[in-house]
């Protein structure tokens, strides 16, 4: 069920250049089902900025009723969010949307989790859930440059992890697809989240493979009511459009027209 709650900040730190990790505590965590879902955050009580900001759930801890988001302080809203201190409250609406399907891979199988920049966070909780099910994840994480790389160790502790940077300052130089072309991993399913260009590249690279992609679109309501986040679909599907916020943000490969 979707809830709105003023959640308390129990941890907040810069983990890479302009990239922040925020841990929030509250009842809302009980509602979080699948990795890849997101929350819609109101960064201040002022009317400026006005709209909520969609941010993926990076990790969930049911026991402590805490969850983590990882975001880049970029524009007006996220910069304000970055100024919040521990102990302060944040207005959170969520969990929203449908996340990555775990059941689509079977125990024993190997899958690849491919993330780009601020698309990496949701893959962390996803990886943990897959491992719980006895599935082996390989992480391929792409970043612009060394300064903005985050969670490398966290992912390594979960399994095989490859870092790629566009400028080659850390890990392999190039894009996630460059690296995939090298290591040619053997896998059953791919899960990916990142810039649209990356999603396109993934679909083109593995046209016949089972894959799930998480999309980004500008949002209004975040719950499916305003038709702001609509994407056209391919002929592969009967519906002629989908809403990223409520039908997605995760869709099977080939559904969304990109």
């Amino acid at each position, binding site marked *: 069920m979707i809830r709105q709650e003023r959640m308390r900040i129990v941890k907040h730190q810069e983990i890479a250049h302009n990239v922040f990790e925020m841990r929030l505590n509250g009842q809302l965590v009980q509602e979080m089902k699948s990795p890849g879902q997101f929350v819609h955050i109101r960064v201040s009580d002022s009317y400026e900025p006005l709209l909520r900001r969609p941010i993926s759930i990076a990790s969930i801890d049911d026991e402590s009723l805490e969850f983590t988001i990882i975001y880049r302080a970029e524009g007006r809203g996220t910069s304000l969010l970055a100024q919040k201190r521990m102990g302060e409250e944040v207005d959170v609406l969520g969990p929203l949307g449908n996340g990555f399907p775990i059941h689509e891979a079977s125990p024993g199988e190997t899958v690849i989790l491919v993330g780009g920049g601020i698309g990496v966070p949701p893959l962390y909780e996803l990886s943990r859930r897959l491992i719980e099910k006895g599935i082996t994840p390989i992480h391929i994480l792409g970043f612009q440059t060394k300064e903005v790389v985050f969670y490398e160790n966290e992912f390594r502790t979960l399994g095989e992890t490859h870092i790629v940077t566009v400028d080659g300052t850390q890990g392999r130089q190039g894009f996630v697809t460059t690296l995939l072309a090298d290591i040619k991993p053997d896998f059953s399913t791919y899960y990916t989240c990142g810039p649209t260009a990356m999603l396109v590249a993934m679909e083109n690279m593995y046209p016949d493979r089972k894959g799930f992609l998480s999309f980004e679109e500008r949002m209004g309501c975040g719950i499916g009511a*305003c038709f*702001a986040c609509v994407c056209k679909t391919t002929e592969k599907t009967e519906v002629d*459009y989908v809403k990223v916020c409520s039908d997605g943000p995760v869709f099977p490969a080939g559904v969304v027209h990109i």
Partner: protein
Amino acid sequence: MNRLAIELPGLSLKNPIMPASGCFGFGKEYAKLYDLSTLGAIMIKATTLETRLGNPTPRVAETAAGMLNAIGLQNPGLEKVISEELKWLEHYDVPIIANVAGTLTEDYVEVAKHISKSKNVQALELNISCPNVKCGGITFGTDPAIAAELTAAVKKVSEVPVYVKLSPNVTDIAEIARAVEAAGADGITMINTLVGMRLDTRTGKPVIANGTGGLSGPAVKPVALRMVFEVAKQVSIPIIGMGGVATVDDVIDFMSAGASAVAVGTANFVDPFVCPNIIEQLPEKLDWLGLSHVSELIGRSHR
């Protein structure tokens, strides 16, 4: 006696609060958050004759205390709206105001004729003010004669009262209001969005794919309030006011300016519970003002 009840042509409202068209879809999403029957009414998303897929994305952009949208009237079309959306809404004890849009007069007439027959549709809202479609929409809303003509044509076929939704993008909004009143409109809803634009500072190109969009949210409240005040002075049919409403105080202001009921749009995105919250706060606000019934607020500014 219910201190919040308001009677309007075709509408018996439990309270004067309703979500504005396009900001609430057809209710399904918000029904997961609270009981829709608590609402005074629901203004559903614009309905057109045929299915519409709307404009390319991005369709929204944030501005200072406001937002721009260019959804482009996306909706499943008359048939599906009647057979699915309105049918589903029958589960709730809440009057529906059907927002009707189109390109030609015939479109409006056709949609109005059929949708006004739906069991729970108690009134129509003629959207002659949508700034986000190439033809139709706002073109009807900027010329008094054309607006009157369309109103009359729809009145002929509608089985429920007809409210006309005015555009703020005009020199003299009261003139349009008088024209549609003379043409038989049962009420006025106002305001729709102000045409605006946001540019990507780096590229210099519009953020919204459509180029321009409709401005809404707290930023427009002063303009909306002024227009409601002006129109209330010049027409005798009731007004459903909107434009930047986000708090119970905003509701008081719009009713003081002359509105008989108030619609909440953009604020639903900021706080999905804004409508029930305002409804809950209204009684204590009336106490604070020493008023026994919400209707006593209507037109306070003019006295």
